[in-house]
C-alpha cells in the first residue's frame, strides 16, 4: 500500500516535471534561438576554428568551409526554432551530394555536427552558469533537438553515400561484361577484374543472348585481366562453355594466368572439354581458323 502510494506519487511528480519541461521548451527554446542568433558570428567563428583544429574537412578550402558552416549554423538554429527537420534533411542531402565526390568521410560530417553541438552547449553553459537550475532546463530543451539534428545530418549523409555506391555498382555491373562482335560470327568477351558469382551469372546471360543475337559460332573469352578465380566461378565458367556449345558456338578461353591455371588444376575442375589458348591474339587466330578465315598474313595466299 505504502509502496504503491509512493510509486504513484513519484509517477505524479515525474509527469509534473515533463509538463514543466514542455512548458520550458516553449519559453526556453525561443530564448535559446535568440541567444544563438545574437552571437552568430562569434559562435560560428569558434566552430570553424574547432573544425580546423580537429583537422576535419581538409578536402575543402577555408572559404568553402566558411560558407558551408554558415549554412549549417543557420539551418541548425532554424531547426531548433521550428522543430521541423525537413529543410535540414534537404540541405544535408544537398551538402552530401556536393562533398561526397571530394572525399569527405562520414566521421568528418558527424564530427563537425558534434563540434557545433559542443560549441553551442558551451556557450549555453557560459550564459547560464550562475543559475544551475535554469541551465539544466535549458539543456533539457536543447539536447533532444540537438541530437535530432545530429542524427538527421548523419543519416542523410550515409543515405546519400549509399545511393552513390548503389549507382556505381549498377554502372559497373553494366560495364563489366561487354560482348563485342569482332567479325561475322565471332564474339569476344574481355573480362577485367574480379569475377564473383554474381558477375559470372551476368556473364552467362550476356554471352548466351549475345550468341543468339549475333549468330555467333565462335566466342573468345579473354580472362587476362582476372586476378583469381574460385571453384564456384570456375565451375560456372565450364557450364557456360557447355551451354554455349548447346547453342552451336565454340568457346575459346584465353589469357589464363599461371595463378588461375594452378587453382584450376588444384581444385580439380574438369577442363578437358575447354579450349584454351595462351593469349588473346592466339585465341583470335584460332577462332578465325575455325571460322575458315585465312589467318592474317597479308602476303600469303589468302583468299578474298
Amino acid at each position, binding site marked *: 500500500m505504502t509502496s504503491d502510494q509512493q510509486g504513484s506519487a513519484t509517477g505524479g511528480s515525474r509527469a509534473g516535471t515533463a509538463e514543466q519541461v514542455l512548458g520550458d521548451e516553449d519559453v526556453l527554446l525561443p530564448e535559446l534561438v535568440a541567444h544563438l542568433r545574437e552571437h552568430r558570428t562569434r559562435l560560428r567563428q569558434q566552430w570553424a576554428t574547432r573544425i580546423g583544429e580537429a583537422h576535419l574537412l581538409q578536402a575543402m578550402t577555408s572559404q568553402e568551409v566558411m560558407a558551408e558552416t554558415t549554412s549549417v549554423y543557420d539551418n541548425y538554429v532554424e531547426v531548433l526554432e521550428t522543430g521541423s527537420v525537413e529543410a535540414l534533411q534537404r540541405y544535408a542531402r544537398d551538402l552530401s551530394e556536393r562533398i561526397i565526390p571530394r572525399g569527405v568521410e562520414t566521421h568528418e560530417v558527424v564530427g563537425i555536427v558534434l563540434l557545433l553541438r559542443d560549441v553551442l552547449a558551451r556557450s549555453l553553459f557560459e550564459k547560464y552558469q550562475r543559475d544551475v537550475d535554469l541551465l539544466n532546463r535549458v539543456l533539457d530543451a536543447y539536447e533532444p533537438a540537438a541530437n535530432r539534428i545530429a542524427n538527421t545530418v548523419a543519416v542523410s549523409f550515409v543515405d546519400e553515400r549509399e545511393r552513390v555506391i548503389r549507382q556505381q555498382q549498377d554502372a559497373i555491373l553494366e560495364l563489366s561484361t561487354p560482348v563485342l562482335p569482332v567479325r561475322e560470327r565471332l564474339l569476344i568477351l574481355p573480362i577485367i577484374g574480379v569475377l564473383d558469382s554474381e558477375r559470372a551469372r551476368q556473364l552467362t*546471360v550476356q554471352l548466351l543472348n549475345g550468341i543468339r543475337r549475333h549468330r555467333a559460332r565462335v566466342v573468345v573469352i579473354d580472362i587476362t585481366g582476372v586476378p583469381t578465380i574460385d571453384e564456384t566461378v570456375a565451375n560456372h565458367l565450364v*557450364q557456360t562453355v557447355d551451354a554455349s*556449345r*548447346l547453342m*552451336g558456338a565454340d568457346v575459346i578461353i584465353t589469357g589464363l594466368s599461371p595463378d588461375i591455371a594452378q587453382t584450376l588444376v588444384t581444385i580439380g575442375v574438369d577442363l578437358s572439354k575447354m579450349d584454351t589458348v595462351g593469349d588473346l591474339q592466339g585465341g583470335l587466330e584460332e577462332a578465325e581458323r575455325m571460322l575458315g578465315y585465312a589467318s592474317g598474313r597479308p602476303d600469303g595466299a589468302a583468299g578474298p
Partner: protein
Amino acid sequence: MSPGPRLFSILRQGATLIASVHTALDDSQMERFREDLVDRIGRDRARGVVIDVAALDVIDSFATRTLRQITEMARLRGARTVVVGIQPDVAFVIVRLGMDTGSLVTALDLEEGLEYLAARAVPSAGAAR
C-alpha cells in the same frame, strides 16, 4: 500409340528430315516422336536429321535422353542428327542440372543445322533414285 493431335512435324527436304517440335511434349509424346522420326529416316532414306526445339522453353532429362537416343538410333540407320534452336536459358538449365548431352550435336538454328549437315554430307552414288 497415344491418340490426339501430333505436336510435332517431320518434313523431308532432299535427303534431310526436318523435325520441329511445336510445344512441350510429355514423356509418351516424346516417345512417339522418337518412333515416328526413326521410322521416317528409313522410309525416306534420309542422310541427315535436323531437330528444331526452338519452341521449347523447358527441356528436361527425359527429353535430353530421348534426343540422345534419337541421335544414336539415327546414326545406326545411316543419318546424322543435329539439334537446333536451344534457347539460352534452356541451354544453361541443361548444363546446370548436369544432364548428359553426350553425343548430341547442336547448332544455333535451322540454317546453321542444314549447313552443318551439308558440310558433312557424303556424296553417295546411291542417293539418286
